[in-house]
């Protein structure tokens, strides 16, 4: 079976030789090609090549079309990204500097005609051609409720959200949601088949139950309704969200849940059961200092919890560059071993 078929089997609960094995190596591509982060992320060809090489060398199932999360801000005019050769790029210029700037914010009509799309488009077209029929190609979707953090900074966004005028807040969210709907259509058309939908506001650790229901849920619905939830993964930036799995399943019909290592996986698996896919996610920040044996033991623990009853996959967070290669290899070897079905 191809990794894509194995993923489909996990979704439908069909027989498969093993669980799907996801590993998110974003920043590692530059080193793989011997480039600086800045050079690497300047080109869709580099990113595609980096992803394909990393996948081949480590053997995990998926590749990524995401360069870095802050790229979304470039569609709105952000021109300053801070690169670092030992970690992820980050937005260095917030284009919304005052509330007045919200009105001036323009969502490009056709986002695929925007310069910020060009390299992502190239990357996706290479990935589609090379592994589109066989492997999951992941795309990253920043939810409308979270995108403002990249446009104005998280603390300014919290201030507007919690204390600002509601009409202004909604104007910003509408623009972000419109952008997201367009992005969903664009990445799907270009070949992405796993859409990682991200919003820490989709957890009650960020906003509490009341605001989750009155604020986060309606905006999530709006983000996802036009495109549907095919291939969509519910991911909250590694924040825990067990207590909202049920409402999300009932109201958004999302099929795959990326469970934070800070949450109780056993509980999540019990809630999700065979109604969706539970993702067992390793704490990859601890992998920086773990030994390969400790890494293996944690993979085993996750698989022991998740594998019974199928509908399970293994995954990581945004793997920090500081993780020793021996631990990445140990993690994947263990995932293949403990993730195999008899």
């Amino acid at each position, binding site marked *: 079976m191809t990794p894509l078929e194995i993923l489909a089997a996990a979704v439908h609960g069909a027989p498969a030789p093993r669980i799907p094995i996801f590993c998110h190596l974003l920043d590692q591509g530059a080193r793989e090609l011997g480039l600086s982060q800045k050079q690497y992320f300047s080109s869709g060809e580099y990113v595609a090549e980096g992803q394909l090489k990393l996948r081949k060398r480590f053997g995990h199932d998926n590749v990524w079309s995401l360069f870095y999360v802050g790229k979304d801000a470039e569609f709105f005019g952000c021109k300053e990204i801070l690169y670092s050769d030992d*970690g*992820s790029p980050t937005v260095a210029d917030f284009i919304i500097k005052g509330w007045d700037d919200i009105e001036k914010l323009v969502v490009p009509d056709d986002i695929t005609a925007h310069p910020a799309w060009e390299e992502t488009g190239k990357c996706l077209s290479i990935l589609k051609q090379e592994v589109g029929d066989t492997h999951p190609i992941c795309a990253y979707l920043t939810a409308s409720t979270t995108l403002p953090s990249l446009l104005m900074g998280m603390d300014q966004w919290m201030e507007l*959200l919690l204390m600002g005028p509601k009409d202004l807040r909604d104007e910003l969210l509408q623009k972000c949601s419109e952008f997201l709907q367009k992005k969903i259509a664009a990445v799907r058309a270009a070949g992405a088949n796993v859409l990682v939908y991200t919003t820490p506001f989709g957890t009650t*650790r960020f906003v509490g*139950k009341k605001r989750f229901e009155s604020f986060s849920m309606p905006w999530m619905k709006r983000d996802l309704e036009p495109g549907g939830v095919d291939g969509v993964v519910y991911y909250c930036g590694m924040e825990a969200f067990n207590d909202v799995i049920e409402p999300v399943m009932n109201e958004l019909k999302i099929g795959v849940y990326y469970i934070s290592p800070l949450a109780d996986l056993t509980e999540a698996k019990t809630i999700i059961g065979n109604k969706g896919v539970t993702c067992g996610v390793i704490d990859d*920040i601890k992998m920086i*200092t773990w030994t390969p044996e400790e890494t293996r033991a944690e993979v085993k623990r996750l698989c022991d919890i998740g594998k019974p009853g199928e509908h399970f996959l293994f995954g990581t967070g945004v793997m920090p560059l500081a993780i020793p290669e021996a631990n990445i290899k140990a993690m994947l070897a263990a995932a293949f071993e403990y993730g195999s079905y008899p």
Partner: protein
Amino acid sequence: MLRSIIKAYNEAVYETDKEAAFKIVEEAMKQGITAEEVVFDVVIPAIEEMMSMIIHDPDANLAQHFMTAQIATEVTEKMLTRFKQSPKIVGTVVMGTASGDLHSLGKRIVMGCLKAMMVSVVDLGVNVKPDTFVNEAVRFNAQVIGISAMMVHTATGEHGCRRVREILKERGLEPRIKLVVGGAPYRFDESMYRTVGADGWAPDGVTAAKVIIDLIGEVRQHDAT
């Protein structure tokens, strides 16, 4: 009466309702409660109560932390102008985000909690160089340096906390200045603060204020002996 004011104030903060919280304070003052009493007998106990609520209530959330810090800072700042004598400050902290890191929400929440608990806070902003942390700590006679980082490479990198620790050592400042860190990576690996050479860490703003006040106490005790 104070009990019922604290209760009402806390309920407003818990519902993240800033206007209601302000109204309660105004009402209390009309009834003869002094600015000093508002800060020391309402705001600070309210934060302490919030602290235990956050620890015990699984439904406590970031919006509440943010609003606790925000409302408490605003109330305290307003009350300070009405204090009869200048208040006794617990100590001084300089805070910023690590070099290469522009994520300022965590810092803002921590600073808000500290200010409301009568700690003087100097905001060094974002993307702060290691020697700036130390120079400013010396300049403001701070007992604690606080460094916030959202990403692994800024939390553990050579230009972050590790370097600040080295500079403190080189300049013989270690007994006088303590080093505290926080931010997402430290929550995922609770032993990380030690590997980067910090004296303490905290998973949220209210706990941060407590950890920092304790460290200020340590430095003060050392100075006194």
